[in-house]
């Protein structure tokens, strides 16, 4: 039977990819008898849910460039494109 350490790694991977059949089965068997890992799985799924929600309103506005910053950066980029400065040697 897999150890908690191995199961925790697979539980983490299952957030990003589909586990292979035998991995799924091994995890399932372990979870049947291990309360800690069941708890872990629930909490890790919650982390994934929260991570996906982070980009939704209202947090989203704080995690995006402000209109001011966007304009400023676009202008500086345009300026640099129009007048290529002397070649840097770095």
């Amino acid at each position: 039977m897999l150890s908690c350490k191995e199961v925790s790694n697979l539980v983490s991977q299952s957030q990003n990819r589909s586990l292979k059949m035998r991995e799924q089965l091994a995890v399932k068997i372990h979870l049947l008898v291990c309360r800690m890992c069941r708890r872990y799985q629930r909490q890790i799924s919650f982390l994934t849910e929260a991570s996906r929600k982070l980009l939704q309103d209202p947090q989203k506005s704080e995690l995006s460039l402000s209109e001011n910053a966007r304009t400023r950066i676009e202008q500086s980029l345009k300026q640099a494109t129009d007048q290529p400065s002397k070649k840097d040697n770095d």
Partner: protein
Amino acid sequence: MSQIHEFINKVNTLTDPETWVSQHGDAMYRYALMRLKNPTVAEDLVQETFLAALKARHNFAGKSSEKTWLIGILKHKIIDHFRKSKREVLVEDINAEADHQDEFFDENGHWNTRFGVWNRPNEALEQKEFWEIFSSCISDLPEHLADLYILREINGMQSDEVCKVLNISTTNNMWVMMSRARMRIRRCLEARWFNAA
């Protein structure tokens, strides 16, 4: 296998720099902000990254996507920033993380601490303080785990691109690091939110 071939044969090209800010600005800002926790510095570094990229655009080899290339430049700007601001910077081989002795398990692979039941997690998602703590738990990760978690989980970058930009040598190392990041964020949330009432 065919995917790998497609990947190797694909040569990426750059788009018009005028479109860079609208295409990549938010993703880059998010990454910088979550690492630096300072909106002004994050904006500055994003701007510097674009300007550096503009100068270097003729050296773009097309081995990664435009976004990965830009994120890679930004990553170095962030490292430089920490170095300059004299915060301790541990430059270690990112792949060493995968071999670290584990602080979460005993020698038999059992959890070495017990953790609690989280009460009403869905209510947490509605509260501003929760999001502050959540972001802070991610920012406080060791820097290579923070890079990985932010780029992969928050920005949704593909695994192969993340490995490239962070120099992670194998997918297996990436999974181990991802798992370690999640354990730390879990522990942090439990201490600072769920057990903190």
